[in-house]
Every structure is written in structure tokens, then in C-alpha cells.
């Protein structure tokens, strides 16, 4: 029992840490590729030179981040077999395929072409070199697609049958076209663009304020980063909205827990704040706006939404006795943190894009000063989002098919998980410090002065 709890903690720690780097990779790879495309296409010599330096500048940030993402990703691949061997047995017929395809279609692509990109500046033509970073960006995003295909099955199984107590694949294309994949993938991709955009924004703001010689170059990336981030956030909200509506059908327990809706209601209210009581299956008090939850789901202020208590009864009838409620308060507040952080970031992005368009950024130094300190926001939102997705399917590891408690490796001792958990955490802390130190040093010391402006 202890090994189970510790394994869950270990997975939560390592996967959350891994997902600090993944969205930067997704978003920043596309951003750097766009920058290099500008470099290749522009006819203005001075701007071309600036572009090249900017590509290298943000390329370095990307590389440091990428290496952290890669090494922490290997841990995740091994984890399923090490700590969750019963899960791997039960699900291997379905879950292994996307992982193997991820390696074959994405990992080879990104690692090979990144090597060429880094060391091939003077060995390839400009266009071919630019194509390499696009392949890296495409590879990273393909990788995200496959892993979310795998994750979507755990949230909403499709295209399978149960044979001899194991889940087996019966329709590969049903796995790929699982509606859940569309929601998760678009949401993750746009979250990556928003996170990458915010990283560009925070760095550019600092450079604009503290490095006068580089001001021109980083004013450009400030503008570009703000627009990029705004696009990402609009996408995040659109895909989030679509996915929430889909949850009503695919995963109602997660949805109602996210909103702490205990009783079935029509129209269902949206609680802004609630004092949730898990023991009595109700909110002791709440501040709610009538009809809004129904509106979120059906685009009109009416429509029935099933409550947690009704769903709990339904699941007990279907799956036997047991507690099928996830941790409602944690889900409820995670959702609010995610949405609040996203909304605030969108306002920021619009404000900066507008100011940059009017050449008025320098008139608000306080805003620029604040940006680097607000950089944790996208990471907070990303982690909260994943927390909702993963904690929201508990007690299941694969919804309706296998419980998390049945998935852990039977020969695992608490002692060894303690050892590995402490080991990974300590190592991850050390590496975070080293990588952050080098990235900050690079930002501080690399200047991009403009020699002669194009007319």
C-alpha cells in the first residue's frame, strides 16, 4: 500500500517536472523556426544579421530547455515498467504502440535534426538549415500527439476489447480519432505556444530594460512574443471550451468534480468559490452564478448537468461498491487557478501587443519589470491543467477498466521507491539550478547590438 502511494507521488513529481520543459519545447521550437524563416527570407542586410543573432540567442535557451526535457522524458518511459508493471501488462497491447510510434516518428526526427541544426550552420545552405529546425518543431509536436493518444485512452477508452483479463486493441484508427485526443492535443499545443510566447516575452522585457544596446532587437521579439502568446491563449481557451463540453459526455465525474456540483441540476450554476465538504457530499457554502455551468456546456442557460452524488450511485451500480469520487476540492481549485492564470495572461498579451504596435512599451517600465516575475504563471496553469486531467480520473488509472491501486508493480518495496523518489527529486533540483544559472547567464551576457539600420 505504501509502495503504491509513493509510486503515485514519484510519478506526479517526475511528470510535473518533465512538463515544465515540454511546453517550452513545443512553443519555442516553432518560434525559433519562425525567426529563422524571417532570417532566410528577409532582403534587408542589417535585419538579417539581427535575425541570425536572435535565432542563436533563443536557440540557446531552446537547447538548454530541450536537453532537460529529453532526459526527464526517458524517466517517464521507463516508469511504466518500473513502478506500474501491472498497468503495463494490462494495457501493453494498446499503450505500447503509441510509445513505440512516438520514438520512431518523433524522437529520431527531433534529435537527429537538432544535432544537424546546432553543428551544421556552415555545412548546410540557409534554407536546408532552416528546414532542420522546422523538422525539430514538427517532431516535438508529433511526439506530443502520440503521448496524448496514449493518455486519451486512459481517460476515455475506445477501440478495445477485454480478452483474458487484458485490454487489447481492436481498432487502431479509433484510438487516433478518439475525440479526447483532439481536445487534449489542441489544448496542449496552444498551451505550449502560450508558454513559449511568455518565455520570449519575459526575456525580451528584461533585455529591453537592462540592455540598451540590444533594445531594438528585443523590442521586435517583445512584439512578436506578445502576438504569439495571444494566439496561443485564444487557442487554449477555444480548445478548453470545446473539451469541457465534450467532458460532459466522456467523463462527467471529472467535469462535475471540477465544478463541485454535488446534485444534478437544470440549469446548473457555476460556483466561483465553495467550501467543499467531501464527507457530507456537499458544499457547506458557495458563491454561485445561476445557469452559467449549463451555459458553458450547452451554449444556452439551461440543460441538465449530472451531480457527483448521482454519478457515484451510477458507478456503484455499474462497477460495484467503492468510492468513485476524485479529490473534489483539489480539482475545483485547480480549475480556477488555471482559468484565472490563463485569463490574466491573455490580458497581458493583448496589452503588450497593443503597446508595442503603438511604440509605447517604454512608457510603462513597471509592466516590463513585472513580466519576468510573472513567468511562473503559464507553468502554474499547465500543471494545474494536468492535475485536473490526471487526478480527475482517480480512482481509475484507465477509466472504467483498471484501478490505480491494481496497477502498481507487485514486487516493489516502499524502501526502493523512497530511494528513487528522493534520488530523482534531488537530482532534478540540482539540474534545475544548473540549467537556470546557465540560461540566466546567457540572457545577461549576450548582447545583440544593431549596426546600422536598414532604410
Amino acid at each position, binding site marked *: 500500500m505504501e509502495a503504491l502511494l509513493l509510486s503515485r507521488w514519484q510519478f506526479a513529481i517526475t511528470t510535473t517536472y518533465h512538463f515544465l520543459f515540454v511546453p517550452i519545447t513545443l512553443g519555442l521550437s516553432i518560434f525559433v523556426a519562425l525567426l529563422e524563416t524571417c532570417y532566410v527570407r528577409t532582403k534587408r542586410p542589417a535585419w538579417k544579421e539581427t535575425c541570425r543573432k536572435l535565432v542563436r540567442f533563443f536557440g540557446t535557451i531552446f537547447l538548454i530547455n530541450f536537453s532537460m526535457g529529453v532526459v526527464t522524458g526517458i524517466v517517464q518511459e521507463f516508469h511504466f*515498467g518500473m513502478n506500474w*508493471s*501491472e498497468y503495463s501488462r494490462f494495457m501493453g497491447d494498446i499503450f505500447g*504502440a503509441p*510509445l513505440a510510434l512516438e520514438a520512431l*516518428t518523433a524522437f529520431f526526427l527531433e534529435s537527429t535534426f537538432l544535432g544537424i541544426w546546432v553543428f551544421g550552420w556552415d555545412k548546410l545552405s540557409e534554407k536546408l538549415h532552416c528546414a532542420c529546425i522546422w523538422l525539430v518543431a514538427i517532431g516535438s509536436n508529433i511526439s506530443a500527439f502520440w503521448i496524448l493518444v496514449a493518455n486519451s485512452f486512459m481517460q476515455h477508452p475506445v477501440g478495445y476489447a477485454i480478452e483474458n483479463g487484458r485490454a*487489447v486493441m481492436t481498432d487502431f484508427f479509433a484510438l487516433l480519432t478518439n475525440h479526447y485526443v483532439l481536445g487534449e492535443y489542441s489544448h496542449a499545443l496552444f498551451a505550449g505556444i502560450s508558454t513559449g510566447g511568455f518565455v520570449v516575452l519575459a526575456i525580451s522585457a528584461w533585455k529591453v530594460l537592462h540592455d540598451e544596446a540590444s533594445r531594438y532587437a528585443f523590442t521586435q521579439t517583445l512584439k512578436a512574443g506578445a502576438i504569439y502568446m495571444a494566439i496561443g491563449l485564444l487557442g487554449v481557451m477555444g480548445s478548453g471550451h470545446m473539451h469541457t463540453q465534450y467532458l460532459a459526455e466522456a467523463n462527467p465525474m471529472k467535469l462535475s468534480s471540477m465544478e463541485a456540483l454535488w446534485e444534478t441540476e437544470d440549469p446548473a450554476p457555476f460556483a466561483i468559490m465553495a467550501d467543499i465538504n467531501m464527507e457530507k457530499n456537499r458544499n457547506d457554502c458557495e458563491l454561485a452564478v445561476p445557469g452559467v455551468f449549463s451555459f458553458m456546456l450547452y451554449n444556452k442557460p439551461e440543460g441538465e448537468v449530472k451531480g457527483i452524488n448521482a454519478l457515484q450511485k451510477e458507478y456503484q451500480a455499474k462497477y460495484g461498491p467503492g468510492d468513485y469520487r476524485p479529490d473534489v476540492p483539489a480539482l475545483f481549485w485547480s480549475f480556477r487557478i488555471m482559468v484565472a492564470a490563463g485569463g490574466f495572461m491573455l490580458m497581458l498579451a493583448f496589452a503588450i501587443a497593443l503597446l508595442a504596435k503603438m511604440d509605447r512599451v517604454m512608457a510603462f517600465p513597471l509592466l516590463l519589470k513585472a513580466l519576468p516575475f510573472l513567468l511562473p504563471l503559464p507553468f502554474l496553469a499547465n500543471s494545474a491543467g494536468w492535475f485536473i486531467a490526471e487526478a480527475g480520473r482517480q480512482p481509475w488509472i484507465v477509466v472504467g477498466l483498471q484501478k490505480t491501486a491494481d496497477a502498481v508493480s507487485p514486487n516493489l518495496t516502499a524502501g526502493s521507491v523512497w530511494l528513487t523518489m528522493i*534520488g530523482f527529486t534531488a537530482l532534478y533540483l540540482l539540474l534545475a539550478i544548473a540549467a537556470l544559472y546557465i540560461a540566466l547567464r546567457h540572457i545577461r551576457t549576450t548582447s545583440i547590438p544593431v549596426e546600422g539600420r536598414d532604410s
Partner: protein
Amino acid sequence: MMELNLIWFVLIVVLFTGFFLLEGFDYGVGILLPFMSPHDSERSQVLRTIAPVWDGNEVWMITAGGALFAAFPHVYATMFSTFYLALFLMLVALILRGVAFELRGRHESPCWRHFWEGAICFGSAVPAFLWGVAVTNLIQGLPINEKMIYLGGFFDLLTPYTIIGGLTFFFVFTFHGAAFLTQRLASHGLTLRARTLAAKAGALAIIAFVFCLLLTFLNTDLFQSALGGLCLLAAGAAFIVGYLRLFQGHSRLAFVLSSLAIAATTVGFFAGLFPRLMVSSLDPAWSLTIVNAASTHYTLSIMTIAAACLVPVVLIYQGWTYWIFRQRISPNDCNDTH
């Protein structure tokens, strides 16, 4: 139905062969790094020989793991939970190594560089050794029960035979890396140094290999497979010839022969295992085979189509990388730290 299981067994062997062959020399280069030169600029040249390719090489391991999961999920589940602490050690090593490649060159302080070079050396040595321990454990057999669950602990994995297995992989990869360096460096001094180190590592590798062969003969049933036995003997012969050739100035031939030796060793061990993938020491009937550990026919078919389309493409573009970076590394190559 059985054909697909067989195809996937072969594909797993191909993936592990590719992994040991390619990552073998970059583990070797990593192990030798601190011993190649007292000068920072020269060690930068050594690292530069593998810098553009090591990550792509490591993907062979990731793919082998993913392919095991997809084709033989029970093997993946049993193997990874069996080697729990060993894999933890390997992960720590690989994490340090991967980040070290990225961070080492980004600061000028000698202390900083020494630390990350140490990490690269450690991060290459530990997996090289552990893979040898793992492979010999697979063929020797492990206490696996009827539910495919390993009953031993971490220290049961370390027997004299498996430690010799680990040392064999360690020294063979070190020699392989040294032979690779003689091909890839422009500096005459460094090439000579690589050859000197190859002499030492190669001698130790031969001793370890001979012991390993002997213990394999005594401890396992590998030699009951004609192909397995032949491959291992051929591997030993190729390695010794390559070792001798290196000192007659045929360093390219030496590298080709050590590659062959590694490929033949991998094929030999898997041929000895066939049709098993993990051997149970408790009861032969409880061993994991290409039949009882496999995915369904449907999943194997999907994966076979995917692999048939994708593997050739990967081979082409990875081959292209080696073509782009075919020139020997000279001191000028390391002036700009990307």
C-alpha cells in the same frame, strides 16, 4: 500468426544491435574523455566528435524500450520492474550525461567543465556496465514466478558471471570508442593518445570477453543454440583481429571489426535466448517467450506496417547526419560554442 512474433523478435534484436553499435562508441568516448588530454581545448575536440550524433544514438535505446512495450508488453513489464534499482542508477547516469553535453561548454570555469566532464564519464560508464549485467542476467535466468513476477532483489542481479558480463561490455565499448576516435580526430597527438588507450582497454576487453564466454558456456544454455555459440565465438575472433589490426595502422578496419564484434555479440545472446526473452530459473515453463509475452496479432500487424515504413526513413536520415559530419574534427571546429 507466429511469423509476426518472429519478425518482432528480429526487430528487437536489430534495435538493440543498432543501440549497442552506435551508443557503444559514444559511451566509449565518454568514458575516455578525462583520460584523453589534460588540455581543455583538446577535450572539447574529443567531445565534438560525438556531439551532433549522441542524442540520435540514444533514441535507439528509447525505441528498443518502446518496441518491447508494444510487441512484448510482459517482457517490458517484467524486465523493467526486475531491474528497478539498476534502471534507477542507469537513469541517473543518463540524465547527468545528457544535460552535461549541453551545459559543459557554456561556462569557461575549469571547475565547471571538470564537473560536467566527470558527469559525462560517469554517465557513460554506468550504463555501459549495467547493460552487460542486464544481458547476462537475461540469459542466465532470473527467479521469475508463474505470474511473470521477479522474486529477487537488486543484489541478486550481481553474480560473478553478470559482473564479468558488465565488465566485458564496459571494456568493449571503451575500445570501440577509442577506435572511433582514431577515425574522427585530426590532431595527430590525440589520435596517438586514442590508440594508446585503445591498447589498454582492448587488452582488458579481451580478457573479460574470454572469461565471459567461458562462464556463459558453464552457466547458461546459450551454446545449445548453434547460431548463438557461433556468433559469440565469431565476435571474439573479430574483436581480437580488430585489436591486432589497430596497431598495424589499420584503424578503420579495427573500428569496423569492433562494430562487427558488438553486432555479433548482441545477435549471439538473443539467438541463445530464442524463443525466450527472459529465462525463469525456477521453472523453464515460466520463461517469457515470444508467444506468451506478446501483444495480439492485430497490434503486431499495425506495428509491423509502421516499422516497415519508418525504420528505412530513419536509417536514411541518420546516415545523412554521419555524412554531413564526416570530416575529422580539428581544433578550429571548437572555436565557436554554438
